[in-house]
């Protein structure tokens, strides 16, 4: 399990990555999908995920639609045109960052 502090700065790229893979997702679905895809290592808490989603919505990078599901309303998030552009850029940046970290760690163990 990865600590909260480490995950904190990664939530935005994670959300972008999830929404690039699947066009429309709701909050719990993102949490669940991240948990399953990381074999339970990354848990996005409610208090960590929603402030990021709301900020991205306010900045116009995510758009939302509300739908009645069973006996409650469900809010779905989708990348906007602007958001898609940012998402591609941020995920590429993240990918480079992961590669750089890998190199650093790999080098470190060799030494």
């Amino acid at each position, binding site marked *: 399990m990865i600590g909260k502090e480490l995950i904190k700065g990664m939530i935005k790229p994670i959300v972008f990555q999830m929404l690039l893979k699947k066009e429309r997702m709701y909050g719990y679905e993102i949490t*669940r999908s991240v948990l399953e895809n990381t074999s339970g290592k990354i848990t996005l808490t409610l*208090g960590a995920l929603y402030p990021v989603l709301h900020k991205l919505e306010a900045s116009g990078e995510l758009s939302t639609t509300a739908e009645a599901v069973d006996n409650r*309303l469900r809010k779905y998030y989708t990348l906007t045109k602007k958001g898609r552009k940012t998402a591609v850029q941020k995920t590429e940046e993240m990918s480079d960052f992961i590669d750089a970290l890998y190199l650093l760690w790999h080098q470190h163990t060799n030494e």
Partner: protein
Amino acid sequence: MTMKLSDATILRIKQELGTQGINNRYLQSELSDHIASDMEQMMDQGLGEEEAWSSAFAKTSGIELEVTAKQYGGILNSRFFRMKFFLWISFGLFAISWLFSSPAGLYAALLSFMALGLTFILLSVDFFRSRKHHAANMGFAIGSLLSALLVSSGFALLFLMIRFHLNTRGHGVDLMIFSYLVFASVVFLYFLRQRRLSISREGKQKMNWFILFSGIQLLLAILSFLSLPFYAWAVEHIWILIWAILAVNLVSLILLLIRRIRNIMFMILLLLSFMITFIHSPLRRFLPAGKPPISQTIHP
């Protein structure tokens, strides 16, 4: 088969979130869906409802919820900040216009109607930006923009008539009343839509209040609009309508304050109907600005 929580449990989740400081209806609805989905997932794996409840809430600390609520409140405030700002400017300038007689008061009144027009434009932009959420938002955006144009140009005509004695044939008032009718229709339809979308009982009840108040405003707007083609006949009775609108505005404002219900759209509608009606009401005679000259020259 996927377990589904009952309405009572959903309501209980919302109440619990409420006790933890999540009072905004939209945020409460979104977070309750998250917790309910989490509970259903755990119940699918064999947990009982109470165990799933405890487990779902154990994952969420009070501090995290507090931060989420604060940040959401901040986002909402910044979204409506400019609208509220222009609404207050509009009301402030309108109040100032009662204190000075023409031309200073008249210029203040002109600026106040322009500020009101700007509020409508901001509302229209907000609807336009969220046009993808609901198809009706595009209609609301057009209605709000039309109201902005009508109310601003309506008072501009009145201003030209009073200040520069331009013969506008009373069209200034016509345009402002048309703006009242258009915007009252927008607000009424908006609340009808919101009621349809509300799932919780409290949400529907709140919307019922707004539908009632905006429905009365729409009725008064229709009566005002109908008085235009029949002005010669209606002129004797128009004071009844003026007093009725002012009384409805006052009662709506008091009831909303008592029930602590706030809504920017409804406040804009209240201010619009108040400003349009007040400049034609006999009440203005008691203020330092004195009897408004426009009341003598509305329909030459």
